[in-house]
């Protein structure tokens, strides 16, 4: 057997195992409650990105309304939890995400036939319109959506099952991770089925597919149902985590952020979706906590990815790992090192400029000091601006050619197919 085949087999076998270990590992670590809350958020974001990646990479459908499924499932989960608690039904809350997934699947069954009539732009626009429609309807239908305050629930009000009372964030993360793994496993199984083959055929040539008696609409709808199920799991898990669901979870911003990070990471695979979820939670929680300009950074980052890594970051990482394993390009690590140094310079310089601008514009700091990267910077002093601009131009000036060189090295080291 060739070295490539050995590598592929090893990857095939070790991938899922690594995944399970990685996801289960935090449970064994002495982490704080807040860390587990963040990790649980990561798990639900992972599911949401898996649902978007499933549609995008398998049938080339861009869903701008994925929050429609996750948001509605979130509401359905909240109502279900409240009903179980009120009636004392012996239904464990850890099954609520399944209910949310099935609820979203039912929603997809109702709206899907309209969305999948045509692929491409038509699908994107229909899902966008439906998402906006439901987000606008939400304040009017107070019975279900609970008005401005949304719907609150208590995840500990349910019966204990298998020792799980969902009191601790560790348990919530465990449940979220288990559902994430379930979805990733389901996706892996799905990729080996004939439905995945038909989906690739429809993506490749809908005209030929139709002439072969394969109905593109039916194939698209089937994948939309699976995707909605995943999004529903994500939405219900979010309700379980924060015990609250509001109209914001249905909004366009939720859909577009998920779509943006899905495209940036290239979330067709479980690894790609995990990377995207990490970036999304990192931006929305960590970056947003340290800078008011976090949306601007997200936008700039996305722009860079679209220009220099249109296949997504996970594809770049995959190529890098493949090259390193094959050890065909000994200079690759030097190239990567140079690129990272340049990128770091550019990021520090650009972010300093942006933060300085924010500080001046919003007059938050006045002439006082702005604390950035461990330094106190005074926006009133010219040398601070010059220094930041110098860093940014040096980083960008050296970064663009080194990125180009790195891309060439990656391509040169590609394994023969």
């Amino acid at each position, binding site marked *: 057997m060739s070295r490539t085949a050995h590598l592929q087999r090893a990857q095939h076998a070790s991938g899922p195992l690594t995944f399970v270990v990685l996801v289960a590992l935090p449970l064994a670590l002495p982490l704080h409650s807040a860390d587990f809350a963040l990790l649980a958020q990561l798990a639900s974001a992972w599911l949401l990105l898996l649902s978007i990646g499933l549609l995008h990479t398998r049938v080339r459908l861009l869903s701008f309304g994925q929050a429609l499924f996750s948001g509605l499932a979130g509401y359905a989960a909240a109502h279900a939890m409240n009903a179980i608690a009120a009636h004392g039904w012996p239904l464990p809350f850890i099954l609520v995400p399944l209910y949310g997934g099935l609820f979203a699947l039912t929603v997809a069954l109702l709206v899907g036939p309209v969305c999948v009539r045509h692929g491409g732009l038509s699908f994107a626009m229909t899902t966008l319109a439906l998402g906006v429609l439901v987000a606008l309807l939400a304040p009017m239908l107070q019975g279900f959506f609970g008005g401005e305050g949304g719907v609150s629930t208590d995840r500990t009000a349910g019966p204990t099952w298998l020792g799980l009372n969902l009191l601790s964030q560790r348990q919530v993360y465990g449940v979220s991770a288990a559902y994430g793994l379930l979805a990733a496993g389901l996706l892996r199984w799905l990729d080996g089925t*004939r439905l995945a083959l038909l989906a690739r*055929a429809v993506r490749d040539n809908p005209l030929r597919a139709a002439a*072969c008696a*394969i109905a593109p609409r039916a194939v698209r709808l089937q994948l939309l149902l699976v995707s909605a199920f995943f999004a529903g799991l994500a939405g219900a898990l979010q309700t379980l985590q924060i015990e609250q669901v509001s109209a914001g979870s249905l909004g366009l911003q939720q859909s577009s952020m998920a779509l943006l990070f899905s495209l940036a990471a290239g979330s067709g695979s479980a690894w790609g979706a995990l990377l995207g979820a990490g970036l999304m939670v990192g931006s929305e929680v960590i970056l947003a906590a340290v800078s008011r300009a976090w949306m601007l950074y997200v936008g700039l980052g996305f722009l860079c990815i679209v220009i220099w890594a249109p296949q997504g970051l996970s594809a770049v990482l995959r190529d890098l790992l493949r090259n390193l394993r094959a050890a065909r390009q000994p200079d690759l690590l030097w190239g990567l090192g140079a690129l990272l140094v340049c990128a770091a310079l550019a990021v520090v310089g650009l972010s300093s400029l942006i933060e300085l601008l924010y500080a001046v514009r919003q007059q938050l700091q006045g002439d006082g000091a702005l604390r950035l990267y461990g330094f106190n910077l005074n926006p009133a002093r010219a040398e601070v601006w010059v220094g930041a601009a110098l860093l940014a131009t040096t980083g960008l000036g050296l970064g663009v050619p080194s990125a180009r060189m790195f891309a060439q090295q990656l391509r040169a080291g590609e394994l023969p197919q």
Partner: protein
Amino acid sequence: MKALSLTPLLELHGVTCVLGGQPVLSALSLQVRRGERVAIIGPNGAGKSTLFQVISGLRPLRAGSVWLNGRRIDRLSPPRIARAGVGRSFQTPQVFGQLSVADNLRCALLAQAGGNWLRRLAGTAAQERETAHWLQALRLAHLADARAQQLDYASLRALELGLALAGQAPLLLLDEPTAGMCRAQAAQMVALIQQICTDRTLLLIEHDLDTVFRLATRVIVLHHGRLLADGAPQAVRADARVQAVYLGLER
């Protein structure tokens, strides 16, 4: 040669199709019996390809109806028409370029699984046997794992023929199956069609008259969307009107 059935497999009644305000097919009626090999010929703009588009559901009718095996099909969607029993090739070969040759054929075979989604999901050993059979029949076994977009033109045409055939459709529409081929490749394609389309009803558009007279048992001549002549190849060849409008003798 197999005896022809008397009941028509395909019937067109008064089919009118309009494109950009111009009638491309005008009250066209014809019947094709099971087992026939019918060549459609005519000058450019005669409506040949539009006729195929109409039969396979890609163009709506202004008037008239299309029947397959006694069932009206002109209101069905293209996939349902294909499932009803119409397989086709296109003027420009249409295959699944990103898929391997074997996966292309698997996709065409999956149509046979019908609405049983469990069978579709799981796939069956029978489908794998059939895939291998078609790879052999099309002489593409050595290219089974190659991406379809990497095939040479003749192999691409052969694969497309396989996609039209593998679904077991009783009626095949072949749109210029030898177009763009050199003489040797065209002869091979004709031999392939003769060899593997034995139990099908064939309707083909072809400009190469050698191919027409080698393959067809009946020739239909279209002119300005109307039926100009219909009969045995030799009779059509001798027809003065056909010679005038199609064989280059029009003054």
